[in-house]
């Protein structure tokens, strides 16, 4: 039982990352019907920007220029990084997606892929091949709850992720912009006729998605403090799986799918030999899709690829 709960705790943390990244992916996918293959690399850029901001703030604090408690540094880092990464996301949209609005959907996916490669290589060229260590913002404390080991970091990560997901949900449901986004997801062609500028909404979508990726990047840095330029690739593709698995444009769907992916990976490794983890985990996803071909909350639709 203890064993199970320990894995549950592990899976919650691991799933939070997938869910946060998948949410950003799902925003772009649901609203603009685009595969954003640069998303994983925006996550990477977010983690690096977070690294820069956090290092800077820690340095300032230690010099005594800013008397800040560590938790405030973390909050500030998250806010500043989310903002900066949103700008990166909007730039990616401007450069790689907007010029291709009338093009086949898949072509835009390829430009996204290429932007991703540029971000990775650019990072490699700028910072060199060294891996960097994310500064320790939270001193890790481990609580032993009846044999289940939980750290304060784990709790923080899960709580912050859930808060962000809630905030996103409220944003999409309650605000004017959120409504415009939902309208765009509903019918791409009619939205401009209603006086909602497509470009603004598209940029906003990318900004929100990138902001979430940035938050995920910082949380990642807190939990797994080793960053390298290629760390976003695998996350990007797995979030892609989660976003589509969740169903088009469904926030709840993407969240659940992200957590599910995390749970599958952790629990498969718990039950089966961990060597077979990918094999079994992805076979399970294949099976799920066989029986539930529209994902969790997606409706059957006939997507014209606009070729």
């Amino acid at each position, binding site marked *: 039982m203890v064993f199970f709960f320990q*894995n549950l705790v592990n899976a919650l943390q691991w799933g939070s990352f997938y869910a946060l990244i998948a949410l950003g992916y799902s925003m772009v996918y649901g609203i603009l019907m685009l595969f954003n293959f640069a998303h994983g690399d925006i996550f990477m850029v977010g983690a690096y920007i977070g690294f820069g901001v956090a290092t800077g703030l820690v340095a300032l604090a230690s010099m005594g220029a800013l008397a800040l408690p560590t938790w405030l540094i973390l909050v500030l880092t998250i806010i500043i990084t989310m903002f900066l990464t949103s700008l990166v996301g909007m730039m990616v949209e401007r450069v790689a997606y907007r010029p291709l609005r009338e093009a086949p959907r898949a072509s835009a996916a390829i430009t996204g892929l290429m932007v991703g490669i540029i971000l990775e290589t650019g990072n490699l060229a700028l910072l060199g091949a060294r*891996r960097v260590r994310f500064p320790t913002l939270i001193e890790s404390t481990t609580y032993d709850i009846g044999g289940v080991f939980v750290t304060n970091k*784990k709790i923080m990560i899960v709580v912050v992720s859930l808060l962000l997901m809630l905030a996103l949900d409220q944003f999409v449901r309650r605000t004017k912009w959120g409504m415009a986004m939902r309208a765009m997801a509903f019918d791409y062609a009619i939205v401009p006729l209603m006086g909602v500028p497509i470009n603004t909404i598209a940029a906003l979508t990318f900004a929100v998605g990138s902001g979430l990726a940035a938050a995920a990047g910082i949380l990642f840095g807190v939990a*797994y*403090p*080793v960053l390298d330029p*290629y760390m976003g690739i695998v996350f990007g593709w797995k979030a892609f799986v989660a976003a589509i698995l969740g169903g088009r444009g469904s926030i709840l769907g993407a969240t659940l799918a992200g957590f599910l992916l995390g749970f599958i990976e952790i629990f498969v*490794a718990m039950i089966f030999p*961990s060597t077979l*983890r990918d094999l079994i985990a992805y076979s399970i996803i294949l099976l799920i899709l066989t029986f539930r071909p529209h994902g969790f909350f997606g409706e059957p639709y006939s997507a014209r690829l606009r070729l």
Partner: protein
Amino acid sequence: MNKRLTIVLLLILSTWVIAPAALCGKDTIKIGINAPMTGDIPKVGEGTKFAARMWLSDIKAAGGLKVGGKLYQVELVIEDNESKAESAVKVNIKMITEDEVLVIVGPQASKQAVPAGDVANNYRTAMITPWSTNPDTTKDRPYVFRGCFLDPFQGPVLANFITEEFRFKKAAVLYDVASDYPKGLAEFFKKAWEGLHGKGSVVAFESFTTKDPDFSSQLTKIKRSGAEVLFTPQYYNEVALIVQQAHELGWNKPIVGSDSWGSAETVQLCGKECFGLFFSAHYAAAGATGATKAFIDRYKKEHGYVPDDVAALTWDSLLIVQEAIQACGAITGNLDKDRRCVRDALARIKKFDGITGQMTFTEDGDPIKCVVIVKISDKGEYEFYKSVCP
């Protein structure tokens, strides 16, 4: 157009065209470096490049490489293999047939070294891979050599060390299943451990896939298995994560690593979590003396960090190559003959004192070296603990 101007222009152009011919001296020795500058392991490529450049600057400072009483200029042909097998093959062929290198150093990872070794062997050009531990790289290939020890040796050494040092009976292993170096070492360790303590004494044999940052599930399993020690033959970036997560999950028993821990970045990334742990290495940076220390200090001064094993092994490989070229006696200019001569000279080297230790070579071109057991001190330095020789 003004006729005179045309003539002047033509003259300038023709000198530009013809002049370079004079620049290409005949007395240069070309050495190919096949390294992964981009792709999965750019850090490995960087270390290779830096070590090679340092070696070159040494040669330049000496005015060239002295072979048979004559000084030759040395040129490095550094090519990027993008950490892809097919690319490494292309690079090797290009260096052999186009750049006409005398000898090749690299590729580093076995994924590239195995197919590239085939090429080098077919074109009768000596190749020495500093870092590839796969037996296939050098097997039945007279022209291919390596600069590192093989896994079958390191595994038993570590198993013996843990048994003698801690008197443990149950061990757990965590390794990357998709990467051939950790996987090979993990298997050899398991074999050796079970040879010492009987079947089933490796109570958990867990794996993950390259680039996974989360090992919580595997570590939870390991913790439950009742193992007394965790052996993880992983690279430094993963070591930092594994050790930290193990501690967060309440694991407070020893963790032991292999030579792949031997990078300055291990401690940098891992911090005080790693203090007090043991690993096997080619050399111990903190306790280093003589040439090893000189190399480390110099590398650190030039590039800002303590070199990892790739840089050190590349350095050693280049020195071995240098010795072989010098042993050759003369460079005739006949490439086929010179290449054969270098290969023969390489095969004749029976003993070599490198910065990663003294090595002797077997028939297959594999070195036999002593393994150093290193302890990470409370200051984060690599302290010499023990030396185990075959």
